[in-house]
């Protein structure tokens, strides 16, 4: 078996037992990237020399007995995380030549834990998209079927992990951007509670919805990385000062005493592909087998979440992206003769179509005469969605459902219909509106051999319960170790 196919936790074990060095591990991953990257197209920046230097340092640190929890492990991050050692493009021409003057807090934490940073992964421009086809530079391919989408916006982060081009990655999730590509690429992805992980140094899309999380080969790896990245950061005033448990401690506990709610609105048969419904229902049966009690519940405002989200997220985005004016960083049109002309030309040439579309919706929703009808109304509906979850979590510990209505579809399949794409986010965006943690864990395959994930959602700061249920499901679902054949 190829060394790059093992999990992060297994690789840590080999390093600890001195059966391999970080340099050897890093070289193996770089060779793997050379072999499969022409087919996958996950990396926007690959820092071979830097990675080998970091691996040498990691080997020395381990020899000196100062190894962090992921010391010497080659990882990669979505290109939305600021890094001083390489560019941060956010998938946009606007930031094509931008190198950040500081590291994102999560990047600093990975480095402090000893990680080897291989490079930066492709994404939809400014994280706006559900297919990763909105990247200005590189559209990744699904490792399970190369003519299919990876999902998005963290498509590169999911594809690279699924193709063993890194041991794990970080993504960001504003409306499903970690969970949806994780589900479509057959890997584990978690969106933690809003405020669990620092957003400092993460290019902002919608500040009340964005959250950083891991994408990994299995549930244990997800817990290991959650331990590294979680916790309060004084540099992010929205990060919460809540205690962080060791997420690996409770993984293997059984599910006795745990109640899992099945929201009937998430299983409407006209919504779901039959393969998805069948596979997820089988997954739910496995959770029951592991000891959980399963009850049917209702989230009555589910059908309104897409509408609320696609007003709130663009409104926040239009405000956040106002900073790209050609002055302090990012693309500047040099022919402009006035300041206003410089703003307008720089933004018009720097942003792609989907970003412009969302800026226009958001600006409209916040503009005089429309604010009450659109932004305020959506923010009131957000309260109703949040209350739906509060009621359920008074009776249940977790909610189980599909992540996406369908498995991955063909590249280009929905490219010209923005609204159809938005509607495919229906099962993931409520968690962002409510700020609750949620994750995708692989539970089976479609009849065409495409991966299908099961989504678990929990109350605020209850990531440990998510991971425990996901681990139990993983043990029983029989999908671990199944790998796509790429070359």
């Amino acid at each position, binding site marked *: 078996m190829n060394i790059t196919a093992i999990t992060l936790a297994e690789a840590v074990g080999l390093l600890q037992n001195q059966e391999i060095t970080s340099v050897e591990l890093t070289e193996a991953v770089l060779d793997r990237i050379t072999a499969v990257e022409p087919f996958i197209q996950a990396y926007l920046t690959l820092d071979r020399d830097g990675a080998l230097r970091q691996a040498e340092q990691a080997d020395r640190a381990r020899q000196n007995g100062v190894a962090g929890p992921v010391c010497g492990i080659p990882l990669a991050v979505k290109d939305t995380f600021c890094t001083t050692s390489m560019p941060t493009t956010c998938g946009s021409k606007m930031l094509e030549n931008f*190198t*950040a*003057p*500081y590291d994102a807090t999560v990047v600093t934490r990975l480095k402090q834990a000893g990680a080897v940073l291989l490079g930066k992964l492709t994404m939809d421009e400014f994280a706006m998209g559900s297919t990763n086809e909105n990247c200005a530079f590189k559209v990744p391919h699904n490792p399970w079927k190369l003519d299919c989408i990876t999902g998005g916006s963290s498509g590169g982060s999911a594809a690279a992990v699924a193709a063993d081009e890194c041991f794990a990655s970080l993504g960001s999730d504003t409306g499903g951007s970690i969970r949806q590509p994780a589900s479509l690429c057959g890997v584990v992805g978690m969106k933690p*509670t809003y*405020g669990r992980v620092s957003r400092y140094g993460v290019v902002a899309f919608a500040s*009340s919805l964005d959250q950083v999380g891991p994408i990994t080969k299995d549930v244990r790896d997800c817990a290991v990385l959650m331990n590294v990245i979680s916790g309060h950061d*004084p540099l992010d*005033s*929205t990060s*919460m000062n809540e205690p962080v448990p060791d997420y690996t401690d409770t993984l293997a506990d059984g599910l006795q005493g745990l109640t899992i709610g099945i929201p009937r609105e998430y299983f409407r048969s006209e919504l779901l592909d039959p393969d998805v419904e069948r596979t997820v229902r089988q997954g739910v049966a496995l959770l029951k087998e592991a000891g959980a009690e399963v009850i049917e519940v209702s989230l009555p405002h589910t059908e*309104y979440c*897409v*509408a*609320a989200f*696609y*007003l709130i997220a663009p409104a926040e985005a*239009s405000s956040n992206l*106002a900073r790209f004016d050609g*002055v*302090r*960083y990012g*693309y*500047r049109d*040099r022919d*402009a*003769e*006035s*300041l*206003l002309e*410089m*703003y*307008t030309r720089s933004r*018009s040439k720097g*942003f792609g179509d989907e970003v*412009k*579309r969302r*800026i*226009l*919706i958001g*600006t*409209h929703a916040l*503009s005089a005469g429309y604010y009450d009808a*659109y932004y305020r*109304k*959506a*923010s*009131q*509906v*957000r*309260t109703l969605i*949040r209350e739906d979850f509060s009621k359920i979590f008074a009776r249940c510990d977790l909610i189980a459902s599909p992540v996406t209505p369908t498995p991955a579809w063909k590249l280009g399949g929905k490219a010209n219909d*923005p*609204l159809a794409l*938005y509607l495919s986010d229906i099962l993931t965006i409520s968690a962002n*509106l*409510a*700020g*609750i943690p949620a994750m995708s864990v692989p539970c089976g395959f479609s009849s065409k051999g495409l991966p299908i994930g099961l989504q678990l959602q929990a109350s*605020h700061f209850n990531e440990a319960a998510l991971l425990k249920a996901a681990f139990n499901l993983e043990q029983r679902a029989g999908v671990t170790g199944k790998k796509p054949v790429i070359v």
Partner: protein
Amino acid sequence: MKITKEEVLHVARLARLDLDDGEVDQMTVQLDAILTYVAKLDELDTADTAVTIHPHRRTNVFREDEVHPSLSRELALSGSAEHNGEAFVVPRIIG
């Protein structure tokens, strides 16, 4: 129609975006479809519902007023298209 061509042009001006004629036509059609869909929210009576603008109910976040290391001027200027070593340079604003 939930949005007209004139309104799209108005919003684009507010957002400092230039759209060519083809883009205006396409955006008008797509924005109209999206705004028609989101009008679904009007089915809900929210007259007595408070707004949620953030997942957690937090008030102000304070810290001690102490001096900490911060970004140097050199680094702060490093990403700009044009600077003079002290400040960002932009086209002349006052004639």
